[in-house]
């Protein structure tokens, strides 16, 4: 009897132990896939950047030479800075045009206008298209001869404004950035709207009683309370604008035509890693160094922005 009970409890204990142990299998699939396809490639890119590459053959360890070349050797360094300032412009224009407008539109929808749901859907719809579709669609719209934009300008008697939008170094980059704003507007509207809607109504009522109106209400009451959503949008826009690749590639090719006036760091990186369309040789070492620089730049900036966001939240 005694021994029988013992074996029974031991069996149970073993079972329980197995149960406790097998839960550790739960995170394994996610860890493996994430580790192999996200973490490993970034660490590998870091190591690649310290080697000399001949095509896809790894040569000798050369320390920081790739980084040095990237910033001092022509044409690499001027291509880097050319692309870098385009990314900066990308970020600034998106912040001002796309997010500024989105803030205004979210504010308008927040005023309980009729058809709010329709407006939300309308602004958001472009976000559902593939970026490549967006790029190709606008390429047709921007076409100098048959594109809808120039034809529309002609109809309004504005022939003087007609332009080879994507063929002119002065307008091409701006055209692409504005297309990106068209694509991203609705997302920002929704984030800002969620921000507005999370402001307690009592607070606004109280401010009204204290005599705050229109402009004062916006700057003194609403804006400070919107800081978290503004920060989120800033971080997302920053990451996205420094990763900008698809639209430029779809509309202007891997050379950032015309004359690299629409080149961005990610497109430049693509050229280094896979060679441009004109059959340039690949430069995996330099490409990896650029990837690491870009990665450090993006993550440092994001970390700083997130930290500022935390601080602001605590202050409030």
């Amino acid at each position, binding site marked *: 009897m005694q021994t029988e009970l013992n074996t029974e409890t031991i069996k149970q204990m073993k079972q329980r132990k197995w149960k406790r142990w097998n839960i550790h299998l739960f995170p394994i699939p*996610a860890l493996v896939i994430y580790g192999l*396809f*996200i973490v490993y*490639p970034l660490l590998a890119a870091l190591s690649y950047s310290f080697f000399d590459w001949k095509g896809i053959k790894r040569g000798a360890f050369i320390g920081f030479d790739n980084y040095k070349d990237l910033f001092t050797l022509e044409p690499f360094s001027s291509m880097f800075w050319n692309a870098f300032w385009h990314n900066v412009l990308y970020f600034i224009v998106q912040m001002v045009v796309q997010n500024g407008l989105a803030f205004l539109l979210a504010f308008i929808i927040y005023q309980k206008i009729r058809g709010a749901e329709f407006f939300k859907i309308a602004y958001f719809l472009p976000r559902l298209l593939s970026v490549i*579709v967006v790029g*190709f669609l606008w390429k*047709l719209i921007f076409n100098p001869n048959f594109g*809808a934009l120039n034809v529309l300008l002609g109809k309004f008697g504005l022939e003087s404004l007609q332009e080879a939008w994507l063929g002119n170094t002065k307008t091409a980059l701006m055209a692409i950035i504005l297309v990106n704003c*068209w694509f991203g507007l609705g997302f920002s509207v929704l984030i800002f709207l969620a921000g507005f809607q999370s402001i307690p109504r009592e607070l606004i009522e109280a401010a009204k009683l204290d005599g705050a109106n229109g402009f004062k209400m916006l700057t003194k009451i609403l804006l400070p309370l919107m800081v978290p959503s503004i920060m989120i949008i800033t971080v997302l826009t920053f990451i996205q604008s420094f990763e900008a690749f698809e639209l430029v590639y779809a509309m202007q090719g891997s050379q950032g035509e015309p004359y690299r006036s629409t080149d961005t760091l990610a497109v430049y990186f693509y050229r280094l*890693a896979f060679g441009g369309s004109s059959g340039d040789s690949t430069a995996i070492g330099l490409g990896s160094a650029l990837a690491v620089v870009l990665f450090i730049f993006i993550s440092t900036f994001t970390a700083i922005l997130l930290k500022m966001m935390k601080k602001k939240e605590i202050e409030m």
Partner: protein
Amino acid sequence: MKHTIWTRPIYYIIAFLFASISLYPIILMILSSFKPSAEIFMSPLAFPKSFSLDTYRNLLDQIPFMTYFYNSVFVSVVSVLLILITTSLAAFYIARYTFWWNNIMFFFFLMGMMIPIKLGIVPLFLLMKDLGLTNSLWSLIMMYTAQGIPLSILILTGFFRTMPVELEEAARIDGASDLRILWNVVLPLMRPALGTVMIINFISAWNDFFFPLIFISDEMKKTIPVGMMKLFGEYSADWGALFAGLTLSSLPMIILFFIASKQFMEGLTAGAVK
């Protein structure tokens, strides 16, 4: 808020102006897709003279659109399923057990949201080559699954933490295993969060163009977005077919959106607001 008589009309004018800027290109795309190229060149803005489907017939003659479509569906559906399975297991583990490494694991996953993975594309390409996955749809499935894991874990873990544990405890006392508890007790309560995860990841997998551009060169393995590259590269003069291609590739997503617009909009912003 204090209003003058013209505040509201101005609100409506601004709202309508930008609604039309948002919608017009999409409407133009759909209308143009019914026009033969000659008609587009003659009168780009006019309403189509007839809704003939010739442009679509041309399109299907020129590129294997149905193959692209099938590949896109397969890749998106399988990667969404894999994300749901792997991340609900991992998030359950992170949220419900209190091992000392759980927080570290959580942050390890979250890091992925800040990583621009495109920058790792060279090692990824070589890795896929070593695994024999180039020109295989599985290379895309693996990428979309991996890419979707961080945000999905964030959303699901957040949701798990808001759910009371009592139900699970009761099931545990009844002798149910952890897997059974997750499957029978927890997941049915998680439908909204799982829906969000599904929508976010489905859209990004369906619309992605970068990874197939790098990993796939076999015509029969292309997804719709890279298929469009071929169309625009080789038939760039046939605008009717181009617009038909753009419309056809966007239509599935637009239809899904109109079926569940609320869930779409909430889903896509959920990750950011969290």
